């Protein structure tokens, strides 16, 4: 690291900051792009189909359909960029970015590896250093901001189906945010702090998923609502509201909206891993090396990304009233109860 920094005539700290920014922004983005491929191939396999494999690299290599990503990229850029006549043009252009940027930003706080000590200097493997005062509250807050992107997209297209989709998205967000936050608060209680580094360090012996199983369940389900993924993707809906909030979107703007969903998956998976599955901790290894810890984190991350896709192709979309019922009458009490039990245990322990 110092060698690389010297090569670029930079202070190691500065170099590491730049490297981290690149990792934190390019990493999830790459993973998200790959996820679009995994989703299409994976869903094909789940449904006994074959999936996209027609795009050839230089007319020769099929690579299991991976050139489809490049083909999609080119297609998105070259397509005609339509804006409907009655749309609110400024907001229409702004909405994809409003959806995309918060999705990208959530990852900033997640530690993706063990802190590295080199040359008397500690390098932390997360964009925001520990003790920044925001901790785990930051991704939760940012995650909810993403719904503004959907709302703006829905409202600015001036299309009644889109508005219905946006409305459903916001209602869903409201009914899930509370249960989700309460589940996370129980984790904060267990840890005695809300910094992701502390939370991960606290899970060295026992991952939170075991003592906090109900909290995990609630958080996991809420993450689907948060990412707008299938059992709860009420912002969309081919059969009842045409396509939902992105009905009027095409070309690159649509791609951004779609991509933000996948970045959301990556962030959500990272949150689940950090909060409940020990972050970069490796089971049965007390002090893993830095490389091992990063590998463990990435492995867990990829696994949970796959779970998101897996569940999408297993469970059909819920009805809207079922979602409301679940959110307010099942998830919230469950989460609240979980919090109370946790608080009571802490009180007993003194």
């Amino acid at each position, binding site marked *: 690291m110092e060698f690389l920094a010297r090569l670029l005539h930079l202070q190691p700290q500065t170099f590491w900051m730049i490297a981290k920014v690149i990792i934190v922004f390019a990493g999830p983005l790459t993973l998200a792009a790959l996820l679009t491929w995994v989703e299409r191939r*994976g869903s*094909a*396999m*789940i*449904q*006994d*189909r*074959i999936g996209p494999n027609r795009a050839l690299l230089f007319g020769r290599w099929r690579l299991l359909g991976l050139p489809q990503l490049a083909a999609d990229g080119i297609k998105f850029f070259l397509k005609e960029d339509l804006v409907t006549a009655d749309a609110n043009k400024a907001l229409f252009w702004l909405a994809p970015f409003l959806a995309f940027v918060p999705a990208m930003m959530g990852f900033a706080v997640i530690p993706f590896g063990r802190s590295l000590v080199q040359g008397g200097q500690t390098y932390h493997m997360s964009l925001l250093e520990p003790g920044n005062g925001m901790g785990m509250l930051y991704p939760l807050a940012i995650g909810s901001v993403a719904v503004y992107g959907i709302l703006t997209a829905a409202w600015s297209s001036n299309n009644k189906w889109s508005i219905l989709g946006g409305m459903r998205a916001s209602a869903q967000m409201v009914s899930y945010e509370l249960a989700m936050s309460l589940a996370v608060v129980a984790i904060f209680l267990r840890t005695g702090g809300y910094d992701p580094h502390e939370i991960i360090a606290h899970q060295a012996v026992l991952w939170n998923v075991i003592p906090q199983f109900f909290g995990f*369940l609630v958080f996991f389900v809420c993450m689907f609502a948060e990412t707008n993924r299938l059992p709860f993707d009420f912002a969309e809906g081919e059969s009842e509201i045409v396509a939902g909030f992105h009905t009027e979107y095409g070309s690159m703007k649509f791609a951004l909206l779609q991509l933000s969903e996948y970045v959301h998956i990556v962030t959500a998976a990272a949150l689940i891993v950090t909060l409940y599955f020990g972050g970069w901790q490796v089971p049965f290894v007390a002090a893993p090396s830095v490389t091992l810890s990063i590998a463990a984190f990435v492995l867990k991350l990829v696994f949970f990304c796959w779970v998101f896709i*897996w*569940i999408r*192709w*297993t*469970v059909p979309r819920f009805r809207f009233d079922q979602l409301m019922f679940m959110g307010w009458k099942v998830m919230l009490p469950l989460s609240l109860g979980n919090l109370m039990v946790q608080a009571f245990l802490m009180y007993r322990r003194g």
Partner: protein
Amino acid sequence: MAVVVKKVELTWVDRTYVIPVLQGMAITMKHFLKQILTRSRKRFTVQYPEWKREVAPGYRGLHELKRFEDGSIKCVACFMCAEACPARCITIEADAFGDLNKTQGFEEKRPAVFRIDMLRCIYCGMCEEACPKDAIWLRGDYEQASYDRLSMQFGKWDLMNTYADKDGKARITQDPTPSIPRNPTSL
């Protein structure tokens, strides 16, 4: 009549949703693994342009005008198929068959023009049924597409050569001239 949908009584296990969802995930995972582990040849989906489906023997696809061994057309331009065709897509113009040949001792007519408009054909097989000479058959080819309407007008030579190479027959574009004169005793 309205269909009465019976409401399924859910047990408490089903009401938790968690276990049924896990069961469902097991099922989808099974399908996923099965697909991954099956060689792509054996998969349910046929990778179309490379691999073609074998059609059943009775399939009604592209027409073939049959010919005798010496190459002369079996069709005697009787217009039966054109009459039977519900889509009215067969056009036949008859021609006197002057030079009779070995196999074809009796016929006096043959089609000068035999055209099927494949865009109108509904592949019903009526022409096949109606033909008294078994001269027109519908066989396996199901890929018929083209960039213009004109190339979907299949003429006599197109139809006679439809399966020429595949069946080991030579391609011809001319009525064969009779090599041996008609044998009167065969009458």
